[in-house]
């Protein structure tokens, strides 16, 4: 029987043709040139991904990160804003603009909807270089001919990273003076606190930060995170400072470190008594922090400021220093910071 497609040579050549098809497709794709939109260069900047970005005249801006939206407002650039991500919630003026539909939501921060961004006809998109999905969409933005600038955003680790974002935005919008002022103020405030902390004659407290209640898992922030930095610069010792990223701890590890202060962050609604009950039922109740009543719950804006590296960094450092050294800096009088015990 002469079925040709059963001969080995036939099959082998078939497979070769298939792989050739892949190769051809790849070749065509690689030499396909994306559309070049002619931009009248006003300034060329280098963004956090190391790209040279040519900025022309900017009139409509979309921000893809909550800290980025805060920077835009902090520099007084809110008139340019036409779109923000779902997580952006500060300052209050932003919520007014959204309610009056002058600014629209474009999807979630960790997965923005590119169509909604395009629908707003932005002249510049300020993206968060710390979010994988946003970095992945880079080629898509470029293909569509949309100018996108990647800030450090959520990948900021310390006050200098935040300030570099602020200055970059200032450069792009020609408000470098304002950016410089704001940056010096923020750095100055943070340095003041850290200097004062260094001169304090008390041993540094050991701090445990729990991201969410213990029932969710004992997630903490490692030394190379923004939270780790805030603790460090406020004069605390993060018990997870030797770890990186957002690891999970065990009760044993926590008890062997015996933290002096425990901070719990919470995003949603707060039920203080149920949190207290939950904590009393865990081994955390055997820590020094518990015995001395130094367990705090950060909610609302305080929570946002701690987990979001932005222009309010000096405020959260101030709050943290008060929590760690109340005898030096005073007691925290904010409604969104709760003392869980006592």
């Amino acid at each position, binding site marked *: *029987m002469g*079925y040709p*497609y*059963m001969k*080995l040579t036939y*099959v082998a050549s*078939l*497979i070769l*043709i*298939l*792989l050739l*098809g*892949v190769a*051809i*497709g*790849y070749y*065509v*794709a*690689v030499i*396909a040139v*994306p559309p070049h939109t002619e931009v009248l260069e006003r300034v060329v900047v280098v963004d956090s*991904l*190391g790209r040279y970005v040519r900025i022309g005249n900017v009139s409509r801006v979309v921000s893809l990160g909550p800290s980025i939206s805060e920077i835009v407002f902090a520099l007084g650039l809110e008139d340019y804003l036409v779109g923000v991500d*779902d*997580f952006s919630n500060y300052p209050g003026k932003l919520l007014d603009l959204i309610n009056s539909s002058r600014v629209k*939501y474009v*999807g*979630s*921060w*960790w*997965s*923005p*909807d*590119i*169509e*909604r961004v*395009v*629908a707003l*006809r932005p002249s510049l998109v300020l993206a968060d270089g*710390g*979010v*994988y*999905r946003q*970095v*992945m*969409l*880079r*080629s*898509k933005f470029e*293909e*569509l*001919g949309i100018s996108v600038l990647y800030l450090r955003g*959520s*990948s900021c680790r310390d006050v200098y990273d935040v300030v570099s974002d602020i200055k970059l935005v200032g450069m792009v919008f020609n408000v470098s003076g304002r950016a410089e002022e704001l940056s010096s103020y923020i750095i100055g405030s943070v340095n003041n606190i850290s200097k004062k902390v260094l001169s304090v004659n008390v041993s540094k407290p050991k701090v445990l930060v729990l991201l969410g209640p213990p029932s969710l898992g004992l997630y903490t922030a*490692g030394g*190379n995170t923004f939270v780790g930095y805030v603790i460090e610069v406020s004069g605390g010792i993060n018990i997870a400072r030797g770890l*990186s*990223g*957002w690891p999970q701890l065990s009760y044993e590890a926590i008890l062997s470190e015996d933290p002096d202060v425990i901070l719990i962050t919470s995003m949603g609604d707060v039920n203080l008594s149920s949190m207290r009950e939950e904590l009393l039922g865990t081994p955390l109740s055997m820590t020094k922090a518990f015995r001395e009543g130094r367990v705090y719950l950060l909610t609302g804006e305080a929570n946002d400021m701690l987990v979001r590296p932005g222009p309010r960094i000096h405020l959260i450092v101030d709050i943290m220093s008060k929590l760690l050294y109340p005898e030096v800096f005073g007691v925290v009088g904010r409604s969104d910071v709760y003392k869980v015990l006592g």
Partner: protein
Amino acid sequence: MRRYVLSITSLTVLLIVVFFLSISVGVVGLGLKEVVGYFLGATYDPLLKSILELRITRTLASALTGASLAVAGVLIQGVTRNPLAEPYILGISSTALSVTSLVLMVKPSLINSRTEIMLYSFLGALLGFTFTLMLSRLGSSGLSLVLAGVAVTSISSGISHILLYLLQSVLRMPYVYLLMGSVSPVLKSDLPILTSTSVLCILASLLIAKPLNAYVYGDEYSKQLGFNPRLTLLTAATIASILTGITVGVVGIVGFVGLASPHICRYLIGSDHRFSLPTSALVGATLVVFSDIVVRTVSVVVRGLGELPLGVITAVIGAPFLAYLVLRRVRE
């Protein structure tokens, strides 16, 4: 035969309808007139043009992904003589992920280069298939292929999970997102690769349809008819892996389509591979395009969720339909 012609025509019509629906649905509602006009060469303002291009890219990518995975599913189910088999069992998805995460750990800046990442995913997928082949001694039987596939998938799944966990601190994101496929980052320039590979492979699979028909009845039967079962196995498995590999590279991991589409099309027109291969392609394409419509609709309507992963929606849509078919068959 009449049943086949009926099914093919209605599925093609359905696909065309869903295709155009997919291009019109979204934040900026587009009417049928504008969509058709675009194809006929009418000019629009840049915004409309961008939105149309975005949607057409997505829809084409979804359709091709669905068709590829569905055809791969039919081939794999035939070759392993197992109706529960699906394209990723030959060690394809986990090895692709392992290779990609390893590469990203060694050179994190590669995240900026989409084409390179795609290439590594595709090569990783083929590498996984090669390991499976080697382990099953070049496909000595369908069963050995499945078992080898399970072994390779398990090993590389473990490796990929470890690597992805470590990669979390490099990429600063929960690693589950890397596991989820999505059509939105697909570029226009990715479409030639996807199209050429998928179309060529699907056409090639039609050539293997007759031998595959004989193969499912057993090695002996197949030999008596003059076919070489081993060669059938190898060819079909290779075509299936190339198809799956290219979708993993371009779109990512989209589950369930490869499992459900062959069943749906078998329910429609039976198990003759000459008919089930093209029908399954249409079913798969329609399923994934429709899932993408759902993804986009949810993103517009529900705040704070962002874009859901495509694989989740394909499962949510496909599973009840499959359950319905199974129930109907069981009742008979």
